[in-house]
């Protein structure tokens, strides 16, 4: 034990049989399983663990839980390093390494600590006052400030750990596993309701585990806790989650929680996740989140060794650690006397208790009486006016308070102390209640905010409701749990409350800023963001009256601890400065997450290959085996082009495009959306949804259709085949598939329910190989002996059914290239077989697979649009020069009325045209702005932009399409494209570049 000089000989919930090693700031220490990093450091006598945010003053471990503002550390190194962790929450494991953050070059010798000597130049609003001018320099300032403020370092490598999400639905969620939470869980669970209880710490019981010798139903409190947890764990409908912090409370009782699954193990077993992020939908919520002790605001109250009184007690009783050998307790309430008793039980020396209250106001309390009976020296009506020690407190000076408590008087008494345990009263943890939009009210007697009106189906119990007594927590916990269970629909009787001996406690004395006559000491309010009482008073003087403004101006409460220990003190000092009542100053809003959460936990499994589904076609293995490159098309990965040997992309695409027009090319078109349309009114439905006529389409024939929104703008397009009188096979764009099906269902269900028609997605039922080129028919003929491929039997836009390569197939003679072309559809299980058969049979025709890039070029050569490329939701058929497909004589179709709007008919609308760059070798950049008049600098008269642009080997030059204002009237004009690396010019043309008469469709 000699390695841990401040470890008590007995006590605590640590595993004393095992000693483990850890490193802090490069130095090796020892602790025990069950320690936190903070308790282990304290056991080794290490208080000084960090430096303040602004002044870089030495800071020590302050608390024992989530509210810790000082002991922020960087855990681990390499890809697993994590910044901003609170040492009080980091479970100790063998081999743990941690360093202080916000120090440079080292904790003991920190250069920026010079700030503490120039602090009068760093007042509230310092950044605003200093770095605002010149505004153009802010980016540079920000960089320096962030470095100086240093909040740890993010890892640069990929996180090697795994995370996951977990969804759950419960009748009653109980947040907090202290006495109130456990009582609520027992009551709710007894009804058979689905209950979940979460506890942020590893152990349950909250304060009763370290508050000292209390009895519940005649047994020690800790045993009652153990029994209660065991009982809950044994119940099938109860989920008990230790090491789980509820991080967010959202609408409709949707709650998120972070479970630290393996953080306490050090090495994460490979089959387990490091953390699990719970997404919980609860019918009812019971908040039993406890309370947080407030510091007292006195001079130099940030010196290492000055801690919350309850934290001192917790280290003694839960970890067997003595934070100091000579402790002064500074309090305004009875609860801190529990710390005195705990220290006394551990045979630790208590220099004195300094109580802000007059003896007459305190002496009737049971705890005060117990301290007196043990002979602990108490100074009533006294205040600490100064503290000695820099990197560790060495003592303090106290004086008597004048009658009104605003000044001190009389002689100074010096007390020796290497630890000061302070208590300024308790603030219920109302953060989650506040997140859920519950309102708060001010409890004057207990000097704290308590939950008032809930917005969600939630109830607060125990200390989080301002009920600080154990008896009350148990009784109201049971009641809250029972009521929540009943409200969720469960039935049962409320169990009897366990018996607890009452403890009489006297009221606290609220002195928000402890008076001093010693001058210079800083009185810290917000320890994490280095905000002092003087800063808040200065802000008030400067007119920052709203608490929200004061918060932002001084940064109080804006640290990662969200002001857990500082908010009420700050509000009270602001109220005092404004001579206002605390509730009139208001309170700030708490926002999720309650505590910092690693990004990995939010991501869960959505990382790497599981970030997004990668959809591929049945022919995909062939593309991979044959050297295809791929491009993303929505979630699809489509073959882009197939380079041979050392071909560049341009060379490969040129070759593919020429082959498709001179020999035979083959494209995997499986991703096209496919919708089966069935019913006696199917033709009528299509007639209304498409701009052109569909009633007279013959069975066995296909037609291209354009779909508009009600606004008359092009929405989708595709070829639809009539398979039978009442049966159509519609194709959509790859990206528009789901939206089109929704669109059809919407019109069917809401506007035309009288039409008898059904829609069913068959996108992936069919694999599609599209072959095109003069030799396409010869190739297909080799593989099909039951389909007549003659022009007469299967003309352009004809459809036939039979077999291809022995596979059941539907063959559509449709073309997106302008060449003789067949789309062969087979059930998708056969897609790869169809493809390989076509490739084998096509060998003698030098069949050339082409990808999406060549597909784009080939269709652009013909001036065929791609919805989403030539259109952007603001383009009408007329804009595209596609009036030919709008059957204006039809009674109606979706979008018809909008096409007659004045705006739809403007002559200067952006219209689709071709652009031929002056230099035929230059490919205009897609998206480039087209202007009428070139000027040295913007603004220029913008006409539109390039929508598609390629090099066309078939045309022997570059080609482009563009949407240009009044473009149809500009044919032949030269336009300019101003670019950052030089200006280009181009001539406006018709948007057809190859075979404009369409003579090649017949091969």
């Amino acid at each position, binding site marked *: 034990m000699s390695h841990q000089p401040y470890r008590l000989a007995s006590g605590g919930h640590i595993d004393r049989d095992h000693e483990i090693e850890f490193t802090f700031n490069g130095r090796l220490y020892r602790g025990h399983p069950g320690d936190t990093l903070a308790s282990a450091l304290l056991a080794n006598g290490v208080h000084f663990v960090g430096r303040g945010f602004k002044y870089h003053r030495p800071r020590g471990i302050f608390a024992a839980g989530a509210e810790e503002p000082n002991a922020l550390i960087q855990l681990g190194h390499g890809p697993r390093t994590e910044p901003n962790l609170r040492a009080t929450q980091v479970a100790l494991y063998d081999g743990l390494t941690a360093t202080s953050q916000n120090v440079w070059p080292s904790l003991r010798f920190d250069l920026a600590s010079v700030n503490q000597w120039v602090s009068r130049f760093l007042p509230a609003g310092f950044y605003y006052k200093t770095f605002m001018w010149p505004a153009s320099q802010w980016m540079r300032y920000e960089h320096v400030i962030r470095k100086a403020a240093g909040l740890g370092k993010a890892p640069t490598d990929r996180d090697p750990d795994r995370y*996951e*999400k*977990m*969804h*759950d*639905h419960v009748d009653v969620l109980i947040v907090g596993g202290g006495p109130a939470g456990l009582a609520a869980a027992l009551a709710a669970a007894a009804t058979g309701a*689905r209950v979940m209880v979460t506890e942020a710490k590893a152990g349950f019981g909250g304060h009763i585990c370290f508050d000292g010798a209390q009895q519940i139903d005649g047994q020690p409190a800790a045993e009652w806790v153990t029994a209660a947890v065991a009982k809950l764990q044994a119940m099938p409908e109860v989920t008990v989650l230790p090491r789980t912090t509820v991080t967010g409370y959202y609408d409709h009782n949707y709650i998120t929680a972070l479970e630290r699954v393996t953080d306490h193990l050090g090495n994460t077993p*490979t*089959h*387990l*996740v490091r953390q699990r992020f719970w*997404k919980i*939908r609860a019918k009812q919520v019971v908040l039993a989140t406890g309370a947080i002790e407030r510091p007292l605001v006195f001079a130099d109250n940030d010196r290492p060794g000055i801690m919350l009184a309850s934290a001192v007690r917790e280290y003694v009783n839960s970890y067997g650690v003595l934070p100091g050998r000579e402790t002064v307790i500074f309090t305004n309430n009875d609860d801190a006397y529990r710390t005195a008793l705990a220290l006394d039980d551990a045979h630790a020396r208590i220099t004195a208790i300094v109580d802000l209250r007059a003896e007459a106001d305190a002496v009737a309390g049971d705890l005060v009486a117990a301290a007196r009976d043990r002979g602990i020296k108490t100074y009533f009506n006294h205040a600490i006016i100064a503290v000695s020690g820099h990197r560790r407190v060495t003592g303090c000076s106290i004086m008597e308070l004048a009658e009104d408590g605003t000044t001190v008087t009389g002689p100074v008494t010096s007390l020796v102390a290497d630890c000061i345990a302070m208590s300024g009263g308790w603030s219920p943890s109302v953060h989650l209640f506040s997140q859920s939009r519950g309102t708060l009210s001010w409890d004057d007697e207990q000097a704290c905010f308590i939950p008032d009106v809930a917005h969600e189906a939630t109830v607060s119990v125990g200390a989080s409701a301002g009920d600080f007594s154990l008896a009350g927590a148990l009784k109201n916990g049971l009641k809250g749990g029972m009521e929540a269970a009943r409200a969720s629909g469960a039935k049962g009787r409320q169990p009897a409350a366990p018996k607890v001996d009452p403890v009489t406690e006297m009221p606290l004395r609220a002195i928000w800023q402890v008076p001093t006559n010693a001058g210079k000491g800083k009185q810290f309010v917000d320890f994490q963001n280095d905000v002092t009482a003087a800063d808040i008073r200065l802000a008030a003087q400067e007119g920052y009256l709203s608490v929200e403004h004061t918060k932002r101006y001084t940064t109080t409460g804006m640290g990662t601890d969200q002001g857990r220990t500082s908010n009420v003190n700050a509000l009270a000092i602001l109220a005092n400065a404004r001579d206002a009542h605390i509730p009139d100053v208001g309170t700030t809003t708490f926002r999720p997450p309650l505590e910092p959460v690693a990004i990995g936990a939010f991501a*869960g*499994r*959505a990382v790497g*290959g*599981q970030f*997004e*589904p*990668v*959809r*591929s*076609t*049945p022919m*995909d*293995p062939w593309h991979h085996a044959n050297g295809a490159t791929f491009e993303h098309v929505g*979630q*699809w990965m489509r073959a882009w082009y197939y380079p041979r040997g050392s071909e560049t992309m341009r060379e490969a695409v040129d070759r593919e495009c020429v082959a498709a027009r001179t020999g035979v090319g083959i494209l995997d078109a499986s991703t096209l959306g496919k919708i*089966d349309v*069935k*019913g*006696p009114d199917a033709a009528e439905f299509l007639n209304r949804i498409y701009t052109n006529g569909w009633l007279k389409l013959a069975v066995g024939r296909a037609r291209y259709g354009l779909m508009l929104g009600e606004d008359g703008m092009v929405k989708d397009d595709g070829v639809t085949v009539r398979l039978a009188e009442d049966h159509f096979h519609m194709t959509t764009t790859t990206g528009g598939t789901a939206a089109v099906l929704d669109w059809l269902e919407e019109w069917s269900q809401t506007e035309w329910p009288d039409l*008898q028609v*059904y829609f*069913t*997605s*068959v*996108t*992936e*039922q*069919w694999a599609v190989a599209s072959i095109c080129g003069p030799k396409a028919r010869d190739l297909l003929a080799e593989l099909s002996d039951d389909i007549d491929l003659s022009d007469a039997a299967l003309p352009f836009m004809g459809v036939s059914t039979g077999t291809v*390569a*022995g*596979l059941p197939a539907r063959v559509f003679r449709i073309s997106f290239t302008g060449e003789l072309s067949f789309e062969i559809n087979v*059930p*998708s*299980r*056969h*897609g*790869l*077989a*169809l493809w*390989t*058969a076509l490739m*084998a*049979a096509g060998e003698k025709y030098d069949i050339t697979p082409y990808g999406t890039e060549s597909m784009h070029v080939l269709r652009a050569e013909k001036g065929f649009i791609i919805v989403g490329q030539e259109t952007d939701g603001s383009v009408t058929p007329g804009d595209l020069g596609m009036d030919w497909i709008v059957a204006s004589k039809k009674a109606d179709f979706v979008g018809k009325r909008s096409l007659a709007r004045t705006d739809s008919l403007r002559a200067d609308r952006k219209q689709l045209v071709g652009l031929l760059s002056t230099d035929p070798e230059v490919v205009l950049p897609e998206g480039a702005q087209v202007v009428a008049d070139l000027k040295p600098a913007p603004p220029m008269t913008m006409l539109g932009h390039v929508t598609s642009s390629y090099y066309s080997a078939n045309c022997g030059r570059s080609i482009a399409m563009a949407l240009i204002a009044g473009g149809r009237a500009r044919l032949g004009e030269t336009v300019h494209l101003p670019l950052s690396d030089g200006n280009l010019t181009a001539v406006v043309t018709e948007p057809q570049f190859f075979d404009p008469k369409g003579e090649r469709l017949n091969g």
Partner: protein
Amino acid sequence: MADVTTQAFSPLDHLNLTVGGPSDAGVSLGERRFVGKLNLRVTPAKIPPAINDLLGGPLPAVGQVTFGGQVMTAWLGPDEYLILTEPGAESALQAALLEGFSGQHVAVTDQTDNATIIRLAGGDARWVLRKGIAIDLHPRSFAAGNCAQTMFERAQITLIQVDDAPSYELIVRNSFAPYLWSWLADASQDVGVRIVRL
């Protein structure tokens, strides 16, 4: 030329999955390849008796599945059902259903090749599913005989609980199947997973 008519691939075939795993695995994972799938659109008030005979009973109620011998029917929507049948039996069933409806306005669409079925079964199956599915899978809300169309993380699925093991069938479009499979295999690591051939 080689006969390709016997070449049929499911979307998971290319993962080259190895059957096996610990005998005490918390879940088993397997693909049911080429199960016949017929999507039925019909107004449920007008079901001829012949259809009930083919499906082994009346159409399922909201959120439910009916089991009729070789046929399982899942409710998908107020006028939409998914009928699962033995591999290869879909064409005959489709024809029989159309005959049974005798000209009534219905759509019976073959979706056999549109999707595949991943079966996740075992004592920890619910635990694994809850990692990717937001709906309540507790037996009080979702038990054997229930079905739902929902999202599994980023993949749309139809989920059917087949028995109390519990065994679940996840019907997923082909192109999402590899994503779903690898997700489930990864999410099962903590309970152990055995890959089975079904």
